């Protein structure tokens, strides 16, 4: 997957680029609107990560540009503003999802994978990882061709882990992903443990190896052997 990150804050840009530059993904980045438009004209990307507030203009210009050129990039907007107007405006003119700052890198990766999957649904509605096969349209999971029934939270968690395999994911990031900001995080850490325990048991019962490793003090890691 080829990704372009358009973000003016250097700290954020570097971390995002480094985090995304794995699993055979190629991640490029730029810091302003002008460079972004040049890059988008010259190259073909699968996904564009777009910060709305850029020093030399409004990020929505990028969306207009992509629309005019009938480009097929999946666009994920990141913005400090969670204003409803911005959200609607972005999604109406061609963005695929919207992520409000601040966010966890794991969340960003999961969302990016999700928008990319949605864009390529026709050719690619199945997510395969070793013996695990996920049908994202039917929201069903098979391990070794055998159906595994997961709850909604377990399913969300599995997708989240697969998008971030090989990475340590903090409990805080998992809690925010599963519950958004509905509740206090501290309340949720116990639930995460329960859900992970159930998910691990269901996968192992179906014959998958133990992918989920607990990282003491911080969270979990989906280990790809």
């Amino acid at each position, binding site marked *: 997957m080829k990704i372009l990150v358009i973000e003016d804050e250097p700290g954020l840009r570097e*971390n*995002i680029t480094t985090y995304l530059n794995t699993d055979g993904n190629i991640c490029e980045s730029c810091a302003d609107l002008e460079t972004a438009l040049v890059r988008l004209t010259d190259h073909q990307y699968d996904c564009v990560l777009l910060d709305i507030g850029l020093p030399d203009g409004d990020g929505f210009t990028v969306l207009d540009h992509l629309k005019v050129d009938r480009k097929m990039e999946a666009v994920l907007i990141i913005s*400090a503003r969670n204003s409803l107007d911005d959200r609607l405006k972005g999604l109406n003119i061609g963005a695929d999802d919207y992520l409000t700052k*601040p966010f966890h890198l*794991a969340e960003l990766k999961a969302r990016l994978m999700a928008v990319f999957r949605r864009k390529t649904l026709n050719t690619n509605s199945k997510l395969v990882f070793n013996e695990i096969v996920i049908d994202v349209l039917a929201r069903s999971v098979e391990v070794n061709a055998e159906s595994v029934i997961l709850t909604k939270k377990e399913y969300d968690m599995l997708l989240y882990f697969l998008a971030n395999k090989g990475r340590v994911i903090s409990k*805080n*990031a998992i809690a*925010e992903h599963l519950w958004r900001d509905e509740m*206090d995080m501290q309340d949720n850490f116990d*639930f995460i443990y329960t859900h992970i325990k159930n998910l691990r048991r269901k996968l192992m019962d179906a014959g998958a190896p133990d992918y989920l490793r607990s990282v003491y003090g911080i969270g979990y890691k989906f280990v790809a052997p």
Partner: protein
Amino acid sequence: MKLSAHYTKASLLISVAVLFAGAVIYFFAINYIATNQLDRNLSQALSEAEEYVRTTPAEPQQYDLDQDHAVFLKTDRQAFKRRYFDTVYHNFRENRTEAGRAVEDLIKAGNRRYKVIITVSRESTRSLVEIISLITVVLIAGLLLVLFITNKYILNGLWRPFYSTLREIKTFDVAGKAQFSAKSSKVEEFTELNSAIYEMSARVKAEYSDLKAFTETASHELMTPLAVAITKLDTLIQDETLRPDQLTQITDIYASINKSTRLNQALLLLIKLDNELIRDDESINLKAAVLEKIMQFHELAQSKHLVIVSRLADKEIVASKYLIDILLNNLFSNAIRHNLQFGNIDIDLNANQLVFKNTGSPVNLIAEQIFKRFQKGKDSQGLGLGLTLVKNICRQYRFDINYRFADDNHIVSITFPKIS
């Protein structure tokens, strides 16, 4: 008491006092003038009597003329001081006794000496005084009436601009769009007052909107550094050499950042609510929304072994889905967080009200203060903004919200506006 009433009272009291004093002085003055006049008439009559005595060789007879009544008494006294005095006058024609004025003096005619007393009736003077007094009283009454009416109507009219200014000040809303009208008035003071208030309100509004814009910008600006902090931590925890105790510290940092973020988001939302910027109203079935939330909070409620009992009737409201979501989230998480182990949550929804009732220990918070920003119980882990958000959302949709603690239950009730 209104200013005009104060003024009317004072002016009436002063007028009555002055007029009364005036009337007394007037009365005595007229009396004095009338008596003087009578006395002059009496001296005239006295000279006539002297003339009569001198020209009449015989004993002077008592006579009773038209108005004066003279009595002559022979006397031996050589000198006699002329004296005027009040007396009684007997009117023979009318055959009644009237107040009179008399003069006595000594008349010498050759070697005859008479003491003469001439009496005149004061009746005419008295009626004159009466008529004048009556006119005065009528005038006083008329004057007072006119004063009263003027004060009541004209003064009230004069004060009208003041009351319209007062009304505007009472309805002044620092966050509202309506400007103070600063009407000019015929009365210079009011014009001045209005322009002073206009300037003040404009200044206040400008400062307020500056402050809001500043808060909004500051909150947004804060999001990027928070994002940098989180992504740096996300990168940091990939380091396999970190010890568990270091990772635990990082978890705490995450929690702090999360709290700052949510605080910031809540403040931003409050600003938006204050400005009524969220205007994506749609028809919402509140029953369905509550049922969905019960499902969503099921897990959390179960961890405290809470029993949720709901009696829900269909209720359609027109509101922003986003705001109603926040409203219900806060109500649910409060009902769970401030609950006891094995407690209850009762949710009642009917056409008029949505009531959340949950068991819990009493909080030492006053019902009026519970909706204020950053008011929270000692043990609360929350932000202290949840109920403020709830209240402001209710205010946007004209819902009436109330909190009370009764029978070991926290009760939050939201009353929907009557459909007119």
